[in-house]
């Protein structure tokens, strides 16, 4: 079973943070060990997933899209139908319950696209806890709707002006807050990354996606899917979708943001183009230069705009279990439009990356085959930005 007791997935993972927060990580690991199989805790989590978030989410057969592509059947795992509009709520609910049992009264989080910030602000409101969300200034500008949603939910959104002013800087700033207010604060990390035990905790709470998908496939079609695809930023929807399929041998494809192309500096493809290193408390693939300075990632999708990737995905890729591909901004936009037109579902730009890969692969497979795509979130938050982009001329790539 991975990770090992020090949080290592093979050589990846671990715990590389300032000493001040290490005791808090140990406390968290102990609490998680205690509650993860506690019947009352699990029941409360499942009840909230069902009655508050609307789980199980459907596995929807996208017939018009499949027909349009003329190959394999596309099955969409509808995480966009969760309360707050993305898979992020699964993990936020689970960690909020942990925080409450640990006696913390304040939740902090980082956010990129704002989906995790909204999910955290939501569970903070649900639990009556104080909430501070760190968000890069660039992301605040491109996701203003989510900023307003977080404020409406009673959270304070703190703009981060350092570095590239995106998700990576928001994460760094959230860690600084945690180092300072560690006694009463719970740091609710939104992706399957960060120091041990976060990658494991986030994976376990998100694994509900893959478990349901697996059961739905078996009961509806009597067979496992032929291929499972998810997008990878930090990797929480990907590991949550993939994890229950690891033992099955079902082919898994993770899709990274290729931005303006992986041979340009403007992408977020850490597994494809990065090197192993340490950022934000864990060892994994990372976009950085040969002097160790972290590079700014680029993606049209704020949620994928991160120069690192969760350690378990690095491990799965290097061990050959996971295949990783990239999709450009332009391909993701095309998938965004295609799904909207053929199915009446506006996907998040993050999920559009996974969809774009399915669009490439489906025509090469037989109509009897099935591809599951994790539709991690809905695209309402992106509509304004996409409208702005379509108004502009060619972006030059």
């Amino acid at each position: 079973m991975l990770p090992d007791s020090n949080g290592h997935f093979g050589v990846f993972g671990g715990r590389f943070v300032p000493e001040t927060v290490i005791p808090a990580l140990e406390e968290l690991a102990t609490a998680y060990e205690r509650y993860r199989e506690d019947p009352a805790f699990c029941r409360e989590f499942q009840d909230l997933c069902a009655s508050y978030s609307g789980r199980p989410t459907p596995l929807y057969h996208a017939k018009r899209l499949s027909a349009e592509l003329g190959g394999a059947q596309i099955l969409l795992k509808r995480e966009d139908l969760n309360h707050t509009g993305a898979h992020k709520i699964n993990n936020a609910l689970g960690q909020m319950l942990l925080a409450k049992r640990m006696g913390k009264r304040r939740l902090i989080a980082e956010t990129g696209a704002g989906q995790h910030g909204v999910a955290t602000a939501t569970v903070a409101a649900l639990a009556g806890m104080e909430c501070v969300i760190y968000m890069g200034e660039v992301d605040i500008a491109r996701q203003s709707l989510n900023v307003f949603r977080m404020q409406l939910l009673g959270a304070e959104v703190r703009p981060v002006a350092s570095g590239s002013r995106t998700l990576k800087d928001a994460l760094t700033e959230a860690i600084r807050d945690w180092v300072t207010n560690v006694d009463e604060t719970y740091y609710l990390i939104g992706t399957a990354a960060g120091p041990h035990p976060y990658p494991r905790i986030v994976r376990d709470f998100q694994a509900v996606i893959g478990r349901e998908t697996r059961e739905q496939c078996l009961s509806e079609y009597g067979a496992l899917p032929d291929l499972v695809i998810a997008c990878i930023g930090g990797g929480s929807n990907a590991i949550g979708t993939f994890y229950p399929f690891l033992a099955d041998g079902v082919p898994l494809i993770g899709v990274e943001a290729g931005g303006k192309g992986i041979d340009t500096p403007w992408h977020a493809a850490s597994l494809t183009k990065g090197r192993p290193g340490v950022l934000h408390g864990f060892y994994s693939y990372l976009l950085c230069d040969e002097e160790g300075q972290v590079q700014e990632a680029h993606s049209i999708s704020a949620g994928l705009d991160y120069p690192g990737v969760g350690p378990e995905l690095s491990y799965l890729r290097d061990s050959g279990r996971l295949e990783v591909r990239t999709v450009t901004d332009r391909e993701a936009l095309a998938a965004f439009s295609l799904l909207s037109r053929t199915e009446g579902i506006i996907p998040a730009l993050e999920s559009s990356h996974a969809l774009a890969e399915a669009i490439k692969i489906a025509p090469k497979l037989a109509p009897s085959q099935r591809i599951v795509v994790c539709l991690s979130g809905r695209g309402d938050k992106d509509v304004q930005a996409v409208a702005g982009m379509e108004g502009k001329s060619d972006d030059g790539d």
Partner: protein
Amino acid sequence: MTGIERINNCFTGRAARKKCLAAFLTAGDPDLTVSETYCRAALQHVDLLEIGLPFSDPMADGPVIQAAYKRTLSAGTRLGDIFAMAQRLRTTTEKPILFMVYLNIILQRGLVRFLQEAADSGVDGLIVPDLPPEEADEILGMAHQRGLGLVFLVAPTSTDERIKLAAVKSTGFLYCVSLRGVTGVRTKLGTDLPEFIQRVRTSTDLPLMVGFGISGPEQVRQVTAIADGAIVGSALVKLLAEGEDRDENLRKLGEFLSALKKAAE
């Protein structure tokens, strides 16, 4: 003399209740040449010099040092230049020189190459704020082979067990973080500092240096009354960043450090 010996020697006067003052300066701020003159000046006054290596994402540092690292990186300072600077400083002093460096800088250079270059440049040891003792065994062995020390940090949140673990692996002294938080200038020390230092004392015989948030002579006096020395960083970086003229900065730095030194004694 090896780096480990130099760091240890720094505390040999401890029996005579001699207190140690350490300065932290960032390499290459505002550029390498000027920062080298600041380092030389600091070495006139202090017992130990820490040189901060710039990193794009310094999560243990507050706004003052973040801004300094940003200036350094914008000025185009490269790792090779910093090693060369350390080598020049080495020819002028037998006082310990330590690098404060985030782990990714070391990893991307290559563990062996980084440690060898540090040792060859006359650097005596490393402080790696994001390397906890339980992840440090590989790097520790390779550093010691080259005579390089590794200094570990303990914080008010550290358990007694973790303090002992850090003490066993630390070279020369333990770096006691005075507060819950990142580096930066604070007006007051944490109220639980004496109790924390007392707790560390019962876990180890190593000398204890206190850093983070120490901004002036009064705090140095308070800290050296209960510990073996004080580390001053952001206050110096801030003073140098606010000044416009190099010579004026050198004068102010000298004055400030001699006041701190007096407070330490």
